[in-house]
């Protein structure tokens, strides 16, 4: 296990979120593209960071309902029994 030593690698860290979200200025983006193309460690960090974010994003795409029993108790607590849909 190694720590990031190159100051360039460290400077890139602060912009990583904006970089993977695509919200970075074009100038900075080009600069990071260039570094990532040459630096294997940063390349891996970017790829695995993207993957991490997309895994969490995808994990939320299903099951938007809470469990039926939880939902029933919620409606009861709120005195909304008359409106519960089954």
């Amino acid at each position, binding site marked *: 296990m190694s720590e990031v030593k190159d100051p360039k690698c460290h400077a890139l860290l602060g912009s990583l979120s904006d970089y993977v979200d695509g919200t970075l200025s074009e100038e900075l983006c080009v600069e990071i593209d260039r570094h990532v193309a040459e630096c*294997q460690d940063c390349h891996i960090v970017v790829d695995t960071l993207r993957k991490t974010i997309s895994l969490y994003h995808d994990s*939320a795409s299903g099951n*938007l*309902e809470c469990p039926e029993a939880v939902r029933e108790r919620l409606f009861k607590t709120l005195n909304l029994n008359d409106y519960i849909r089954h």
Partner: protein
Amino acid sequence: MVESKTEISVEALRSGNREEFARMVDAYSGPIYRLALKMLGIPADAEDVLQNTFLKAFQHVKDFEGRSSLSTWLYRIASNEALMLIRKKRPEVTLSDISPENDDNSDYSPAQFIDWHPLPEAEFLSSESQSIMDSAVQHLPENQRIVFILRDIEGLSIQETGEALNLSEAAVKTRLLRARLRLREELSVYYGERLKKGEKNERG
């Protein structure tokens, strides 16, 4: 958060229309419960947060001014409830825990450099993988955890996340970056092992 098909009327909510309130609960109870469960990790606690969120929404909807969207307003109540419950359950809070940013970079610099992202898709869908991901979120400090959940799991914008948490966009971004990097580290340890195992099996 998915806005319901027919827009919920804030006017009707404010005038005390119970049917409209029930529609709001129907539309948002799922996402609010999920937020609470990701935040707290314990179903009974998540249910407390869920109930308190809508009880408070019911009490305060008269004062809702519509400066943020209804969903952001509900997320705001739910986030407060979740953070309050976490802090209540952990009374031995030290000053460093509540200081807004712990500015040492030790939790910031990447230390794992294994490229696990091309693992077969099935690896990421296993129940073991899901529980590793959930517990990694639980390991985040709560002020990073809530930002990550709102932004990257619930899909709020940076601005909406800031509105829900009363934070500047800069503060949201800082916490989000730290959360993402920490999660990457933790997932890298697990998936790095999976990768090595897979390679060994292929050889042997």
